[in-house]
Every structure is written in structure tokens, then in C-alpha cells.
């Protein structure tokens, strides 16, 4: 480690000490020195580790090691590409299908949460990743879907599959209502306004007692059912209620697959390319004839309708919904998934959703540190690796071309 690094470590540690001492040391009126020492130690340790890692990466021996590993990596890559793409995909789908049969109820429930967040992440990915519009109120559309199903089902007894299109339509309309006034705004204004809209929807759900029962929420919605033909005596129709956890798991898995297909098709379509053009340079896109206004609205509407579908499922699964499910922090978690996965990248978003929902379940005793770590990871990701875990291929190529041009 160079001398300047050591000096920086000392200065940073001192600053950290100043910041941590009063905040951590006085949880009550009495000073708690041990607590300060532990927290300070953890942070300084992390800092020291990151500096050691940085110097290591700069050193020659590290690069020699990398060079020696290169043929090995190539061999692995060859083996990976030797198996066709669809085989990998089939393997993953098979694994996800078998999972609930091997898992207990609790693990299946975690699986459902995972899939819900994958869908939400992919939906937000359209708005943030493809069109480049920062949306901090995304969870509001999820709430629209959940409340549409709850209210229609409770008041009029409308079944799930009929509510679904209604939820999609209402979600899309809500997306347009939120999107329209914000279209002319720049990124940061947009962020605040969408955050404001998200909170307005939550406050309305919370305060409109007559319709939504306020903070108590709504309960007693019926579960979705499947209708299938029977031939026991002539042609008849039988109803199969999707009550068990496994049935609900397969249902959300189906929704996830449709979402993945939908989003990847959108990504490769003319519309997807137009969105990317808007993200990269809106003025240039407008000048080359991309109808930016309509496409931005479309991005909002589509992103919102994906969330509304999952929202409907969520309300049906729990048979319960209340406004506190849709707080700002939830929007942050979904945004975190998109950001960590790599803005615009579908496999990245899926992996990030699995990691961010499964890891907190594994470390349950560290549950309370979850959001702390998310926030830290979000800022660190932007500073260190803005392209995400798995960068979108198009973006990666752009970055490579830029690097070659330099």
C-alpha cells in the first residue's frame, strides 16, 4: 500500500469517527462506547479492505495472475457456448418448475416474492432502463392493480381473470395521468414529481375511508380460479380454485414468463430502439423523427400495466391489501433491483431481484440492515460500476466502441 493511501485511510477513519461517535454512541442519554467501537471498526475495516483490493488490482502480479487465468476462462466460455442457448433456458425453467415440489411452504412463499419482484423490476425496467425516465413512484401502479381487483371483487364479485384486463387498463391510465404532466421535465424534476404522485396515491388510499377502509385495508377477496372442460357426462365445465401455495407459485411463474417474453420482445422492437434513442439523446431522437412524446407516454403506460398485473395477483394471493404495502421504500427496493441488475438488462434485473429478495431471507437475523445495505449498494454501484451486474448487451457494445475510439 502506498504512503498516500495510508494517509487517506487515516483521514477517512478520523472523519468516520467524528460522524459515528455522537450518532451511534448515544442511543439513549448514556454514552455507549462499545457500540461506537464496533460500528467504527466495521467501517474502517471495510475501507482498509477496499484500499488493499485497489492496490492489489493495480499491481503487476495481479495482472500476471489474470493473464495466467485467461486460457482457463476461455475454455470455460467455450464450454458454456457449446451448449445451445435454449438448453440453458430450459434448464433454468425446469429448475424453477421443480423448486416448489422440493421446497416447504416457507421457501415457496419466498419464491413467490422473488417472482413478484422480478415482474416489478422488469416493468420498471421499461421506464427507467429503456426510456431513461426516473420513476420513484412505481409502487403506486402496483397499488392500483391491487385495489382494482380488491374493490371489484369485494363490491361486485367480479372474478380475477375479468379484473385483470380492468387492472391493466386502469394501470395504463394511471401511468398516462402521471406521465403526461411530467413529460417535459428533466430527470431530477421527474423523480420528485413521480415520488409525489406515488405518495398522493398512497395518501388517497389511506384517507378515503368510505371506499378503501383507510389504513385497515380490504380483506376477503376470492382467490383466482381456473375453468376447464370435463367430459364425465357430456361437455361440462369444472372450476379449479388456485388456493394452494404451489398453484399460486405456478401462476406467478406463468405471469413472469409472459412478462419476460413481453419485455424482451419490446426491447428488440422498433419501439424499444426508439426508447433507447430517447434515453441516449432526446433532442437527436426527436430530430430524427421519433415521436418522443408518445413513446414516453407509452413507456409509462406499459410499465404501469405490468405492475398492475402483479398488484392484482398480490392482492388475490394474500386476500388482503392495505395502503402501507405501498410505501416509498417499496419503490426504492424495485428501483434498487433495476439499478443493481444493470439499467436496461433483463437477465441482470432477474438476478438482482433473486439476490435482493433471497439474500435477506437467508440472513434473517440481519434483516434490519437490509435497507442500509441496499442504499449503500445503490450509491456504490453508481460510483464504481454504473452499468450494473450484467450490462445490457447493446450498452456494453456502445461502451466498447467508445473505448476503442479513445
Amino acid at each position: 500500500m502506498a504512503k498516500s493511501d495510508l494517509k487517506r485511510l487515516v483521514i477517512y477513519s478520523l472523519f468516520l469517527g467524528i460522524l459515528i461517535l455522537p450518532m451511534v454512541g448515544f442511543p439513549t442519554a448514556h454514552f455507549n462506547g462499545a457500540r461506537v467501537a464496533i460500528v467504527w471498526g466495521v467501517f474502517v475495516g471495510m475501507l482498509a479492505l477496499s484500499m488493499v483490493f485497489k492496490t492489489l488490482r493495480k499491481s503487476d502480479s495481479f495482472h500476471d495472475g489474470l493473464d495466467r487465468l485467461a486460457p482457463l476462462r476461455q475454455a470455460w466460455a467455450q464450454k458454456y457456448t457449446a451448449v445451445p442457448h435454449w438448453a440453458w433456458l430450459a434448464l433454468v425453467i425446469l429448475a424453477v418448475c421443480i423448486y416448489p415440489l422440493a421446497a416447504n411452504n416457507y421457501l415457496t412463499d419466498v419464491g413467490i416474492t422473488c417472482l413478484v419482484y422480478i415482474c416489478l423490476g422488469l416493468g420498471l425496467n421499461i421506464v427507467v432502463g429503456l426510456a431513461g425516465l426516473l420513476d420513484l413512484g412505481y409502487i403506486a401502479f402496483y397499488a392500483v392493480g391491487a385495489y382494482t381487483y380488491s374493490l371489484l371483487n369485494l363490491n361486485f364479485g367480479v372474478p380475477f381473470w375479468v379484473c385483470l384486463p380492468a387492472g391493466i387498463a386502469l394501470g395504463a391510465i394511471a401511468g398516462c395521468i402521471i406521465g403526461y404532466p411530467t413529460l417535459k421535465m428533466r430527470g431530477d424534476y421527474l423523480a420528485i414529481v413521480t415520488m409525489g404522485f406515488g405518495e398522493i396515491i398512497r395518501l388517497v388510499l389511506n384517507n378515503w375511508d368510505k371506499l378503501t377502509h383507510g389504513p385497515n385495508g380490504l380483506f376477503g377477496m376470492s382467490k383466482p380460479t381456473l375453468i376447464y372442460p370435463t367430459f364425465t357426462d357430456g361437455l361440462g365445465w369444472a372450476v379449479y380454485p388456485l388456493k394452494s401455495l404451489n398453484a399460486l407459485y405456478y401462476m406467478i411463474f406463468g405471469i413472469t414468463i409472459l412478462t419476460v417474453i413481453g419485455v424482451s420482445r419490446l426491447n428488440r422492437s422498433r419501439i424499444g430502439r426508439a426508447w433507447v434513442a430517447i434515453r441516449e439523446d432526446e433532442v437527436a431522437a426527436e430530430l430524427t423523427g421519433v415521436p418522443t412524446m408518445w413513446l414516453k407516454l407509452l413507456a409509462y403506460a406499459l410499465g404501469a400495466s405490468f405492475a398492475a398485473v402483479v398488484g392484482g395477483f398480490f392482492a388475490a394471493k394474500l386476500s388482503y391489501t392495505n395502503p402501507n404495502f405501498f410505501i416509498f421504500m417499496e419503490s426504492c427496493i424495485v428501483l434498487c433491483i433495476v439499478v443493481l441488475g444493470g439499467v436496461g438488462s433483463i437477465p441482470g434485473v432477474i438476478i438482482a431481484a433473486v439476490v435482493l429478495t433471497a439474500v435477506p431471507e437467508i440472513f434473517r437475523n440481519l434483516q434490519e440492515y437490509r435497507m442500509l445495505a441496499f442504499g449503500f449498494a445503490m450509491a456504490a454501484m453508481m460510483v464504481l460500476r454504473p452499468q450494473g451486474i450484467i450490462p445490457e448487451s447493446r450498452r456494453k457494445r456502445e461502451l466498447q466502441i467508445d473505448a476503442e475510439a479513445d
Partner: protein
Amino acid sequence: MDATSFFIQQMVNAIFLGSIFALIALGYTMVYGIIQLINFAHGEMFTAGAFIGLIVLVAFQKMGFVESHFILTLIFVFALAMAYTAVLGVAIEHVAYKPLRKASRLSAILSALGMSIFLSNGMMLSQGVSDRAYPPVLGWEGFTLAGARITYGQLFIVILSIVLMYALWIFVNNTRLGKAMRATAQNKTMSRMLGINVDKTIRVTFMIGPALGAAAGVMVGLYYGSVRFDMGFIYMIKAFAAAILGGIGSIPGAMLGGLIIGVVEVMWSAFLPSEWKDVTTFVVLILVLYLKPSGILGKGDSEARV
């Protein structure tokens, strides 16, 4: 109580609340003016200031310092809270914003948001989930003016915020550093060519803005009697609405916007169902952005809207 004195009473409350919003909004506006970034972590700085004020105040109370040297205690409480938050502001700028100064806007905003989540959860873990009570040192004694009751605490808070704003005004307009700040806000490259230390200027901005927010946090704690780790969120939205309303980047705009938001909120709570008062702030914010995004005193630069 007749209608006139009720109205005057509400106006007094509005000015009181408005001056707190104005102080927070100033932090936003200054940071936005100089690096064109919404400092999402500003609400958390406000909360951090409130917590440090609480810690110092409780420590002084235990020593019996509050009774013997009341004024000195208040000075210490405000000074230490502001100093701590200034250090916090500089640290955050250095870690999360400085490396992204040339990166895309989206990255910078996301980094700011990540910092905000990190800080608010850090405070939750270190200071607890529930409300922490402030010692009621300001008391409820007061006087009656034209039928409206004003406590000495309210008067003190309003006067202190006016003093702080005036000091800021003098600093920005009459000192070398303030001049450097204005120059950097206008054109960074040109300022650097003229020998202004841009990094240092930005750092100073990140000390003053959060320090003002911290002062507002201590005021809220002293007056309302409690602090909570997530109280920064709603104040942040309101102060942001104030900054936008007055014209972001403009210091008198932030003061005016803060007052207007204070009046709107207090008047709404006085005459209309108060559970909707938070919705009104959002509606005001969205209407302003839609109808006149440059705000009342904003410069209306068309470049900013592209």
C-alpha cells in the same frame, strides 16, 4: 375567539412553519444552483441535525447546564448540530457526488437516493425506530398580540431563522467565497479558468446547505417536542416544493417559496380536512412544475428544461 384573531393566529403559525421550510429549502436551492443535482440526502441531514441537537441538549440537561446558562445551551445545541451536519454534508459530497460529477444525471440522482436510504436507515439503527422526545426547554409562555397568541419559543425560532437567512445573504453577496459560489453556479469551466477553486467552493456549499437544514431540524425538535428517523422525508418534499415554487437556484426564491408553502399548509389545516394537507403540498408542487417550472423568482433558463 373571533374570525380576525383566528386568522391572525393562523398567519403567525404559517410564518413560523414557513421559516422552517425556507431554511430547508435554502439547502436544496444552494446545492442545486451549484451542481444541478437534487440532494436527496438533504432530508436526512435535517433529521441528523435534529438528533444531534437532541443528544447535546440531553447531555447538557444532565449536567444541569440548561437552568444555569439557558442562552449558552441553545447556542451550543445549534452550533454543534450545524457543525456535525456540515461535516456529514462534505463527507457525502466527497464519497457519493464528487466521483459522479461528469457522469450521467441518472447515475448522480440514483447515488443521491442511495445515500438518502443509507442515512435514514443508519439513523433508524443507531437512534431507534420510535419517536425520541426532546426536553421541553422552550416552554409555552408567551404573549398575546392582536388576539393571537405567540409563544416565546415561536418568536425565538422565527428570529433565529431570519438571522440565519440574513447571514447567508450577506455571505453570498458580500464575501469573496460567496462571489466564487455565484460564479461557480453560473459557469464552472470559466470559474476554474479564472482561478476559482471549484472543488473547494462546492465543498463550502455542501457545508452551508446541510447546516441550515440542521438548524431547521433542531427548531422542529424543540418546538414539536420529538424527532423520528424518517421525519426528514415529508419535510424534504415540502422544502423541495418550496424551492421549486420560488424558483430553484434562487436564494430569495427559496425563502418566499417556504413562506408560501407554510401559509398553504396552515390555512388548509385550519379550514379544510387536515388529513389531506400533505396531498396539497404535492398538488402545489406538481401544478408549479406543470404551469411555471422556472418558479416565481427563477431565471427561467430554457436550457434547464431540456
